[in-house]
């Protein structure tokens, strides 16, 4: 009997998944394989990096001194990249045993657009990405100004802003950024074994597997389509930059009174609608989510689908490219958000309503729901109840967030050899 285990860790709002299985190598000998996908969480949700050291220690225990065969970073969001560097800084470095010494990684795959010269090679994507970056920069100024007001900013906006901040030192007591975390991941394997992958990327000998097959369904090499212009709403954030005369060195929110004859209620409503930073943070977040590596691992006739945080646009493109297939395992995308699971007509192609055979169908949800947690720490409407119900109707659903922080659950697949 051959066995494949998917171990999902409760890292609060984030993903950390270890796949372990056996297969025969080129010489026909049984070997154990381990793939680690994304270790990260959102600082403000659940709020803690304390969860990572025990998770990493468990992973090392599973590896028993052997190297990790493949690390996959699905996309460049904090809730998917933060964990390794956090654990290193919090535990291993302090012990004088850097994590990189213990977690030897044979191959590392990162999403295609994380490659340092990616945007130089893809000018269309660069143009669109720059527009999104510019919007983020403006929002950043607004949020810094708004945070200084008594009203502050809603926590949903704060979370989105933080999760999409790439360069600033916001994590781990303001000493580490998302970019630092990604850089750390780049250094896990030798440069010649570090690859930036996308659909159509020639996997060739860029992995150690023999029997197991991996197909990459997303992202596209050119990520332009994940940055549609219509998603960026025009913004007028009303921020005044400090002048030489001003007493403050930070931007402030512009205070405006309605002119004579203008209805005050309508005037202030207009100002609020023009401050569309939430709309645009959603668009920025969505674009990055859609760069997620979505891959299907085929093992002994079973197909296991890992989706990162892919959203509707990515699913639509995967569908149009004809890559979708029925699967036996689905990692529910984007933490069970309404935009992470494809619509019926697409879902039907991967997890049809009517089970086609007697093979198992399982799924995993990794999220941070309101139930049992502080309301101010969670995202509204995540997970989406109707979405979770659909997945549950079609598969045996495992919910890792029901475990205690740092603990894990195992999903087992067994097949006759």
């Amino acid at each position, binding site marked *: 009997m051959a066995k494949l285990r998917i171990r999902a860790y409760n890292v609060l709002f984030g993903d950390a998944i270890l796949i372990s299985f056996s297969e025969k190598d080129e010489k026909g000998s049984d070997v154990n394989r381990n793939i680690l996908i994304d270790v990260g969480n959102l600082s403000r949700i659940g709020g803690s990096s304390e969860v990572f050291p025990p998770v990493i220690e468990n992973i090392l225990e599973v590896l028993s001194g052997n190297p990790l065969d493949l690390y996959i970073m699905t996309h460049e969001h904090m809730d998917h990249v933060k964990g390794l560097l956090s654990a290193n800084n919090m535990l291993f470095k302090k012990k004088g045993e850097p994590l990189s010494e213990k977690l030897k990684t044979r191959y590392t795959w990162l999403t295609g657009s994380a490659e340092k010269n990616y945007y130089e090679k893809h000018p269309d994507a660069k143009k669109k990405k720059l527009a999104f970056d510019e919007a983020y920069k403006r929002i950043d100024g607004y949020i810094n100004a708004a945070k200084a007001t008594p009203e502050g900013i809603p926590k949903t906006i704060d979370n989105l802003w933080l999760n999409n901040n790439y360069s600033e030192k916001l994590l781990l007591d303001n000493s580490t950024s998302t970019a630092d975390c990604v850089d750390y991941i780049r250094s896990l394997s030798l440069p010649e074994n570090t690859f930036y992958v996308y659909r159509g990327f020639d996997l060739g000998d860029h992995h150690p597997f023999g029997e197991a097959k991996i197909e990459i369904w997303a992202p596209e090499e050119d990520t332009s389509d994940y940055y549609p212009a219509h998603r960026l709403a025009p913004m007028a954030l009303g921020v005044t930059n400090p002048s030489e005369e001003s007493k403050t060195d930070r931007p402030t929110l512009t205070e*405006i009174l309605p002119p004579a*004859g203008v209805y005050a209620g309508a005037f202030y409503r207009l100002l609020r609608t023009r401050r569309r930073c939430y709309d645009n943070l959603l668009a920025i977040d969505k674009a990055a989510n859609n760069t997620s590596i979505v891959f299907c691992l085929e093992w002994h006739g079973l197909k296991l689908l890992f989706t990162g945080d892919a959203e509707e646009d990515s699913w639509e493109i995967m569908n149009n490219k004809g890559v979708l297939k029925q699967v036996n395992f689905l990692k529910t995308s984007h933490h069970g958000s309404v935009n992470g699971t494809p619509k019926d007509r697409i879902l039907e192609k991967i997890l049809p309503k009517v089970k086609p055979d007697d093979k198992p169908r399982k799924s995993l949800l990794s999220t941070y729901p309101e139930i049992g947690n502080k309301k101010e720490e969670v995202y509204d409407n995540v997970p989406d109840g109707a979405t979770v119900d659909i997945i549950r109707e079609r598969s045996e659903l495992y919910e890792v967030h029901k475990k205690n922080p740092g603990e894990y659950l195992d999903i087992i697949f067994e097949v006759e050899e």
Partner: protein
Amino acid sequence: MKIRIPIMIQDPSITTRYPELDPIEGFDPVEDYFLDGPVSEQIAILDFSPETGELVKGAKIVKGKKRGNYRSAKIEDLRKAKGNEVYEPEFLQVSTFATILKTMYMLKDEHILGRSITWANGSPQLLVIPRAGKERNAFYHRDSNSLQFFMFPSGDDSERMVYTCLYRDVVSHETGHALVDGIAPDLFDAQNPDGLAMHEAIADLTALMTAIGSHNLRRIVLDKNDGKLDNSTDFSTIADDWRGKFKSLRDLNNEKSLDPSSPKENYVKDTECHARCEVLGGALYNVLLEIFEDKKKTLAGPEKNDPKTMHSVSGGALVFASDRLKQMIFRALDYLAPGDVSFADFGRAIVAVDTVAYPKDQQIRDFIKQEFRRRYIVKDVIALEVSTFFDHEDLKGIKVSNLVGSDWAAYNFVSQPSARSLLCIPTTVKAVEVLPRLDVTKKTTDAETNEDVVSHECIFKVGWDEEEDTPNSSKKRRFKVGTTLAIEWETGKILALLTNAPQDETNTKYRYPNEKQFSLIDEEQRKRRESRNEFYDYLDNRGLIKFGKNALDPEGLELFSFIHGEDLDGKIRLRGSGKMLHMMERE
């Protein structure tokens, strides 16, 4: 109070085409008050600095020499603005204000709607931002009842900025959206693409008609084209220069059609509203040309074969044609049945208002029907026939003023079984909504005597929800339909009945003047159902629908870039699909 303000005839680029034309005209609106900004009772200009977001001081209105006559502090300079002076903030503010007000006046005219204009959602003022930011954009935003005009680099070799607020057709177009939303708000919640395409086409035609309303522009264009318009794009192009290098966004002078057998370049299959609007806009522009040519011949009389005479009468003929088209379009919006409507519904409403206004003048209505058939909006001209001028027993003993003034009287009327049959309300429908009744007094100029005929009508609308299955989901779709009755105030005679209700045996007695319509409308409604499905899928496949709280930002305001889906007990409906009007054009 009266004010004299400058208005752009077209846009700054017009002097490139017509060097002899002064691009600025004077306009003398009369309002209860004008304040700095300018601000009036229904319009407020709010000029936010694109750089800092601060409110720039609005144009100052100072008392003029004559009592009740006000003017801007710099108005005399601005009236003669030349070159870069038109880009001064005060000119932008005043010119934008003037263009919006002039567009509103066009509709307020008693020869057109015959009633006061209100904005959607009961908003008292339309807030207008002449310099909303830097991008290629301008839009009507329902949630804030605002018009927002942006600016962008011209794309030519110069450093010239294109200020969309200086473009008379762009400003009129967006004002048209706001006006349409005030008159027929259900179009903004359309469940099928025709509702939105109608919004867009009428906004285009509003821009066209304000252009024709400019005496100087009309004269110079007709002189250039020897009094003809059939091969001219001078009036028909929308937003010249929008694509840079003086390229326009759309041309109403087109042969776009829903007929699959049309030449490829003319066939419109798209559910995207901007593509689809060209079919309706093109059809109605052709109606304008037809009325124009016909009127020229009438005015020229025996000299109709003389090109000089035809040229000399062309100005009057164009004003006549534009006024007639204006009447058709905006009165038809008032007559349109509530809820989810199609181009064909709008065609029937046009036929109805024109029949009521000019019962004897069948010729142009025949042309309209043929034009709608030619563009495959209807399969047969019979589908556009409408029930007009008939009596109904339930209205005989009723005072129309009571129906208008009393909700109780209106609901009591609707509850009568025979009235329900008249209003095409299926027996299975439990809850209906009677909309606020309209008291309309409008004038129509008699073609023979050239005298105004005054008519006093009540426009009575009732709406209700219908449900249907959706092909790609287990959920049902909920959509609104309804019926409009135009009732003669003094006699209670029904002037017209228009409905988009699904037909069944209980509601067909009054709706058709021609029994052949039953099967045609059946097919039309089947297509409309398909169209709703396609429209929903179009939005859904692009991830543009968000349900419930997901459609709102943390402050509870509607998201800008998503359509609000409503899901009530597994029955879905779109809210604010009109956002598509400003979203898709930004791609």
